């Protein structure tokens, strides 16, 4: 039993936090959000320079070969600063698919440029009506000529418009909800027949709806074995969920710190409102939620790399239940304790509220994971 961070972990986390403290104020973030693309080239380059884009990837491609706990520290810092750049999608989700499922040649083509900040990925998977069911894939891929032709629609593809390459799930056999028959394809952003419509999300990220209309890709675009992508997708989803828990922990930490500061300084009836027991006890419960969520985020990140899949699923679902509950609890209370100010765009806490709101139901809300735990 040891909760110590290694020297390297500490250094990485410290330098990232220092950078974000200097360069990623809420004002800077607001400008980025309002920009046409909704993310900052400068910030992304800085991430590449710091090396955080390569944390979990093999050293032969320029990465650090780190484990999920290493990435967890990055995610906590990003959550605290409320970073809108597509780190989680690239490193935690689509990057994981490539690192775990792609051929050596594909990895060589993609990972170095991803780590250097020159190429961005997104994962086009969710479809209308699929909800959180990972095996619900209606998009079809038909063999033809020397490759495949893709036909279908994808919804809420996070950072889809920012991506140079989309990892697209499509069915090479079976019906819409069969576990078998799902394949993954690497699709260029400018492929003929691909339409990507960008929109802003409530938490100020970008997402896209994607139409694939007779998109042809070569045989080499197939990522992993044909028709057997589901375990790969499940692994990446669990990995990304564990990291999302860590992002939530960082955001919750900020929400608690800023709320505590607010109730110490805000005076009513001639005293700080933090002197009122009704508020003190609510603040304490927020702190307890944070500590419990943090413990479960640790569990998820420790188990996601190494545990057998049943144990991994159990830990991830348990963690997401606790974290989703804590997201809702802390974000709602943070706004309430800030009073009217918590309702305004002006304070960062209202932005943190929105991010926590979406994290609570991203990659499975608490109800979904309660169900998944019951089945395991």
């Amino acid at each position, binding site marked *: *039993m*040891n*909760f*110590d*961070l290694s020297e390297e972990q500490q250094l990485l986390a410290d330098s990232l936090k220092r950078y974000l403290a200097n360069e990623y104020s809420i004002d800077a973030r607001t400008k980025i959000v309002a920009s046409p693309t909704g993310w900052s080239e400068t910030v992304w380059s800085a991430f590449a320079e710091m090396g955080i884009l390569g944390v979990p990837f093999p050293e032969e491609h320029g990465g650090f070969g780190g484990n999920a*706990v290493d990435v967890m520290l990055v995610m906590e810092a990003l959550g605290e600063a409320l970073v809108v750049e597509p780190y989680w999608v690239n490193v935690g989700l689509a990057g994981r698919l490539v690192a775990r499922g792609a051929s050596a040649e594909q990895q060589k083509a993609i990972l170095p440029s991803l780590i250097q900040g020159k190429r961005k990925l997104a994962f086009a998977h969710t479809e209308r009506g699929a909800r959180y069911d990972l095996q619900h894939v209606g998009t079809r891929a038909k063999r033809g000529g020397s490759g495949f032709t893709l036909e279908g629609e994808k919804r809420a593809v996070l950072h889809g418009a920012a991506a140079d390459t989309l990892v697209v799930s499509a069915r090479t056999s079976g019906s819409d909800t069969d576990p078998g028959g799902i394949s993954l394809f690497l699709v260029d952003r400018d492929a003929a027949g691909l339409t990507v419509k960008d929109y802003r999300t409530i938490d100020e990220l970008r997402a896209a709806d994607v139409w694939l209309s007779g998109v042809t890709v070569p045989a080499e675009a197939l990522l992993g074995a044909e028709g057997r992508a589901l375990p790969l997708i499940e692994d990446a989803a669990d990995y990304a969920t564990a990291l999302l828990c860590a992002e939530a922990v960082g955001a919750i930490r900020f929400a608690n710190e800023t709320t*505590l500061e607010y*109730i*110490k300084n805000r005076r009513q009836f001639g005293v700080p409102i*933090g*002197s009122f*027991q009704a508020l*003190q*006890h609510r*603040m*304490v*419960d927020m*702190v*307890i939620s944070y*500590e*419990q*969520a*943090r*413990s*479960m985020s*640790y*569990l998820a990140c*420790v188990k996601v790399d190494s545990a057998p899949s049943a144990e991994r699923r159990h830990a991830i679902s*348990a963690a997401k*239940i*606790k974290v989703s*509950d804590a997201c809702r609890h802390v974000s709602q209370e943070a706004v309430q304790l800030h009073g009217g100010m918590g309702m305004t765009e002006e304070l960062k806490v209202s932005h943190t509220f929105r991010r926590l709101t979406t994290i609570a139901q991203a990659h499975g809300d608490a*109800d979904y994971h*309660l*169900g998944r*735990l*019951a089945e395991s």
Partner: protein
Amino acid sequence: MDLNYSTEELAFRDEVRSWLHDNLPADLRQKMESYQELSKDDLLGWHKILAKKGWIAPDWPEEWGGTNWNVVQKYIFEEECGYAATPPLIPFGLRMCAPVLLQFGTEAQKKRFLPRIYDGTDFWCQGYSEPGSGSDLASLKTRATREDGHYVVTGQKIWTTLAHYADWIFCLVRTDPNTGKRQDGISFLLIDMKTPGITVRPIVLLDGSQEVNEVFFDEVKVPVENLVHQEGKGWTVAKYLLGYERMGTGRIGASKRELARLKELAGEHMKDGRPIIEDARFRDRLTRVEVELMALEITNLRFLDQMRRTGKPPGADVSMLKIKGTEIQQSLTELMMQAVGPLAQAFKPMDAMDFDHFTARLAPRYCNMRKATIYAGSNEIQRNIIAKATLGL
């Protein structure tokens, strides 16, 4: 980062586990697992087995019988006891009076009392709360006036756990009623329960159990050598004890055992032809408690690790373990009672009959465990402590 115990810690856990397996008498375990009330003999019986093994007072200095275990070993030991369903160790002598004597007592007091606490000769109880002084302890009124080498004590204590078994009581009493601060003028006295003028009256609780009492003092003569620390400095002693809370206060081991039992029960009792555990509404409630318990175990280990690394005694963190730990304990008793549905109404047979005694313990236990969020500093007081000590509010 590693959430698992080290090889040495695992070896220690296995040693404790197998010793408990071999030495916990079957009748005691059975009583514990079926939630029966324990007699004084049951409690002392287990105390003496542990004392003989040398494991009764891990926290004490080695010269007085301590085990010299580190914080993690102490925690493992407590969790294993909970998991094995050992009878509780009554803390008033071992974990309250003894640490006070070790810190503030004279050599004569230590020599006189500690060995008898260790081997179970003296059964202690705690005289803190009074009818008008619960969470607001400093408002206590029991008076002690000094006359010819004695204190003469008059007043009343309440909620005194197991006073009807006790040989001795340690009390906070007011020796000086005229101080500016209420915390001043309080003294810490050790009182022999056989002294004339002491009356113990049981308080029957909502589950029909008798574990707490009122204790009346009518001009009870206590020799001055039974004063601990200085006269008027009892509040210092009381505060020291508050800081002496243990890291095992979350009672993870016992709750894990209860959770496993709850799952068994919910697998046996049916709803619409299926076990109630497969009912989504019931299952979700159970899972949320299970998740809180998983989280609390890791939180507890994090605090332990922090304590081991910094050497700092647990502060307000312990308050969080108490709040969450007791909430989980209460939820488990509630779900167990709910798992058996309408059968939970059963309480006591009026005549000889074939009666399901186990099921009939579930509702009383639910009733009884409402105490957990009230005793040892109510959960609201614990929130006050965190607000003040950790958050600076």
